[in-house]
């Protein structure tokens, strides 16, 4: 156990002992990797861990605990998700305690069957500029001040998106891991007939991925949970990054930066004259 983990555990323990929160959402060890963990008793705080394996975005669970006081262990991107979810009225600002942990990038998750000796930082973490959450009630500094060793072997990447989409299994892991895919009725099934059917294999992968990209545009905080969860390794975050660039160029809006900036589609104004 290192210093930042001890600090995290003591914060979580004191929050639970004083009854400030009912629940601390964090990570626990699961042998080789980590898994989400919900600590509700003070002694359970000892099971919390924090290391570069923690790629999962815990803001995903906040909506399930709406109306209850919860604390969340948040990396930079998780904190931005909290901000964006508050702006979308999915999370009450007052009921969430953010324990921000300084993040130097997370590892690309080891796939089944791989030896796991050479771990490297995920691609999306190399683009990341928010190492600390913009909203923080507590802050846990990382042990090593420098960033993780960035051993990106290939700067070049495939741009053949159309054939990458064909690898998709429609397992919906990207949807289930995303903090912003919270609609109870998904719009891809809202049409009759459905745009994309989840079960019937009709190969509607182009529509599925483009629709999802359009719904992520200007909201995605590029936490990379979808990309890491993807069993066929489609680099989805890179696609959503392009659309966020469009919002940055046109409206100078960066999702999750601050509570004050409203999302551009909500305050859409006509510009110019045609």
């Amino acid at each position, binding site marked *: 156990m290192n210093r930042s983990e001890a600090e995290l555990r003591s914060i979580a323990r004191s929050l639970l002992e004083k009854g400030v929160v009912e629940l601390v959402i964090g990570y626990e060890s699961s042998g080789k990797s980590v898994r989400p963990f919900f600590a509700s008793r003070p002694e359970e705080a000892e099971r919390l861990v924090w290391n570069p394996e923690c790629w999962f975005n815990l803001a995903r669970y906040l909506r399930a605990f709406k109306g209850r006081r919860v604390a969340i262990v948040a990396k930079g991107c998780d904190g931005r998700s909290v901000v964006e979810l508050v702006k979308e009225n999915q999370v009450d600002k007052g009921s969430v305690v953010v324990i921000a942990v300084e993040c130097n990038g997370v590892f690309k998750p080891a796939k089944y069957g791989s030896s796991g000796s050479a771990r490297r930082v995920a691609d999306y973490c190399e683009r990341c500029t928010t190492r600390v959450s913009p909203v923080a009630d507590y802050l846990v500094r990382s042990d090593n001040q420098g960033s993780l060793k960035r051993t990106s072997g290939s700067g070049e990447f495939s*741009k*053949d*998106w*159309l*054939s990458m*989409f*064909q690898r998709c299994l429609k397992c919906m892991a990207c949807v289930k891991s995303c903090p912003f895919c919270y609609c109870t009725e998904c*719009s*891809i099934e809202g*049409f009759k007939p459905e*745009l994309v059917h989840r079960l019937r294999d009709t*190969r*509607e*992968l*182009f*529509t599925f991925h*483009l*629709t999802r*990209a*359009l719904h992520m*545009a200007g909201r995605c905080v590029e936490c990379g949970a979808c990309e890491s969860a993807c069993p066929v390794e489609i680099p989805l975050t890179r*696609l959503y990054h*392009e*659309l966020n660039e*469009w919002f940055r160029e*046109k409206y100078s809006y960066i999702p999750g930066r601050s509570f004050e900036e409203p999302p551009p589609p909500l305050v*859409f104004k*006509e*510009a110019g*004259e*045609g």
Partner: protein
Amino acid sequence: MAWKPRIIVFTCWCSSSGVDQAGFEGFKYPSNVLTVRVPCSAIINPSLIVKAFEKGADAVFITACRPSELRRVAPSRITEARVSLLQRLLKTIGVDEDRLRILWISSNEGGLFSKEVTRMIRRVEELGPLNIEGRMVEQV
């Protein structure tokens, strides 16, 4: 049989009478154009445009009211922003952004519609067919 491009035209209620006007005035445009009339251009869900591409359209053309001719908030501006975002997305995934276009058209401009849609077809003929389904078949 020679390949002919298939083009879907989404027309808003007002500009659809502009498309009709092309017929009344005797302007010609190619027959491989399918027009779909919708109540307003802002009701066109971008997912439906994407779906049109997947289902075999080589290009999608949207005709909408001129923003200056609308009274208060301009729905055409909403459509314009959506189309601009979708063009960026298409460009990213390697589909030419010229396959999606928006045209401001009033109800008396049949000539303009026929001219522009013909120009779009020439452009799509240069680009060739959009191979989304083709790739699917190869990989199965």
